């Protein structure tokens, strides 16, 4: 063993708040196919979220339900319970966008059925003997979720600050969905990582699952954007290229390539803690003005 003190993750205590799911609903009748006007590439790159999140966040909930018995810390358990409800709601909210895409002639089913397979089968509960193998697979998935949540928080923080989308006249309902979701991702960004540290925390596992998650996200995203661009009924020769992504990133319509690359060493740093990134204050401030979150608050009060 080394005789130097290991650098431990340092949470920023002021960034912690109690978590609570909000029941939101959006109606999509008035949202155009290209909801960033005149920019199908940006629209579809962001639309990939609707392809991945319904199955992905359903899977988060599925895995976290199984991890509850391993939690020995009451405060963390409460956070995980709040996290589960928020994720369940995210999954439902993005799922409701899919029929709208289909109505507009862009049927997402070929892609989402394969994402469903990925999360339900490949990453599902495998037939493993109880005991160590089963625990290993559960911990592997918990670590994967922590790595993915690093990116959802990154994207959440980005969309809360993406003023360029407003300036381009992006559809307000879609922006509210993205920012409500982004704000909740920022709000609960520490939970997945703290849970991983609590139940396992091995550094080798963190690196391994990060590599898997990052590769998978890049793969899924580029195929998703390509799928949308090629099948968009209004585009004759729709293409998705990395160059387009890079250019949008420079204009602030998508996350910049540099920011994506810089986020890598941060997650792999020994002293990383998600509370060091993004701002809970900003997230809470958005949730206090989000039309969907306000409506949720209202119906909660009327139910109480």
């Amino acid at each position, binding site marked *: 063993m080394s005789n130097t003190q290991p650098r431990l993750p340092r949470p920023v205590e002021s960034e912690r708040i109690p978590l609570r799911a909000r*029941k939101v609903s959006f109606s999509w009748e008035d949202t155009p196919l290209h909801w960033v006007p005149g920019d199908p590439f940006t629209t579809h790159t962001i639309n990939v979220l609707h392809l991945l999140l*319904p199955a992905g966040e359903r899977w988060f909930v599925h895995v976290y339900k199984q991890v509850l018995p391993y939690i020995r810390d009451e405060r963390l358990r409460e956070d995980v319970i*709040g996290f589960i409800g928020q994720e369940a*709601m995210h999954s439902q909210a993005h799922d409701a966008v899919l029929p709208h895409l289909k109505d507009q002639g862009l049927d997402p089913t070929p*892609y*989402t059925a*394969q994402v*469903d*397979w990925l999360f339900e089968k490949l990453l599902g509960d495998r037939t493993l003997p109880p005991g160590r193998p089963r625990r290993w697979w559960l911990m592997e998935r918990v670590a994967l979720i922590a790595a993915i949540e690093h990116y959802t928080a990154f994207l959440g923080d980005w969309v809360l600050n993406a003023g360029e989308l407003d300036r381009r006249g992006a559809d307000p309902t879609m922006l509210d969905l993205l920012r409500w979701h982004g704000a909740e991702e920022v709000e609960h960004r520490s939970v997945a990582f703290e849970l991983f540290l609590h139940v396992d925390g091995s550094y080798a596992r963190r690196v391994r699952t990060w590599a898997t998650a990052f590769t998978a996200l890049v793969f899924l995203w580029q195929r998703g954007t390509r799928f949308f661009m090629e099948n968009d009924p209004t585009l004759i020769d729709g293409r998705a290229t990395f160059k387009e992504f890079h250019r949008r990133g420079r204009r602030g319509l998508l996350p910049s390539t540099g920011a994506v690359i810089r986020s890598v060493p941060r997650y792999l740093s020994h002293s990383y803690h998600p509370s060091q990134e993004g701002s809970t204050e900003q997230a809470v401030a958005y949730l206090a003005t989000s039309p969907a979150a306000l409506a949720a608050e*209202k119906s909660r009060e009327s139910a109480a």
Partner: protein
Amino acid sequence: MKPRPMTLLIAAGAALVVRRAVRRRIQGSPLWPMPALDPPVSGQPRSRALRLLVTAHERIADGVVRVRLEGHDLPRWEPGAHLDVVLPSGLVRQYSLCGDPEDTSSYTVATRLVEDGRGGSREMHEQVQEGTELEVRGPRNRFPLVEAPSYVFVAGGIGITPVLPMLRALPEGTEWRLLYCGRTRASMPFLEEVRKLDPGQERITVVPEDEDGRPGLDAFLADVPEDAAVYCCGPEGLMTAVEERLPKGAALHLERFAPRTAAGGDGEFEVELRRSGRTLTVAAGSSVLAAVRAELPNTPYSCEQGWCGTCQQRVLEGEIDHRDELLTDSERGDSMLICVSRARGERLVLDM
């Protein structure tokens, strides 16, 4: 070593062929080489929020308005189904659908003004008007028309709304009868429509209380055939009266105007957890979840209000009083959200 031009050419050619082959596969299968899940799960949300336009808001009886909500490509529904309507204030109310189930361009509901109600009906009457946009969810059916050799319907006032599409949907030649009661003839909606369904006037008994007094339930329910399905929708008092007069075990289907509140149905019942071999009591006013958590602290849950779905559990026996806003009709058959839903009877058996 310097590669020979021929080798380079072959390598480039092979790369091109592979690229084209992969492209072709991706066209049909966007995430190739992954297979697809059959049947897919995503893209079929349990309930879709729809924003519909009020195109008619008319008084059809004393204190009753009929509201027509227009949209396009609306989900079809079965008789007995209701809509969740989000009122401008954010209140959510359930209204039975009373139009044509085949009509995918509009939904029709009718609502009575409840003077001392919780505010929903007043809003529907006074704030909502032609041109208002309303958000609706559903339709959902917790009062479905089952197959039976004969049918008996009892409707009280506005309780006629779910019954009307049922009468229209019954196959020709089915044996049925209806007792339709109300305070006054002028306050009873859809009298004309109901009459049209029974040209001979033998199947329908209309009882306005101010003319004929209390409905003669005893006589009407005296000779209900044993295998008849009995449907009742109306005020709580009427439904209790019908329940009392029917033999135990009769196929009685009730539809309440409002979810039973603490005064009515938050009573105590028993829950058996079959797999863990325990039986617990859910106290009046408490939830199944609270009782289960006391025994099994790792039971998953989250929102505790019946919409996130985390606490869904399989039900093996017992009749469920569903109070959530999430599950589909088919899921309601054998599962429940234990945070809000309760037992209709005295006992439930859960698979946990």
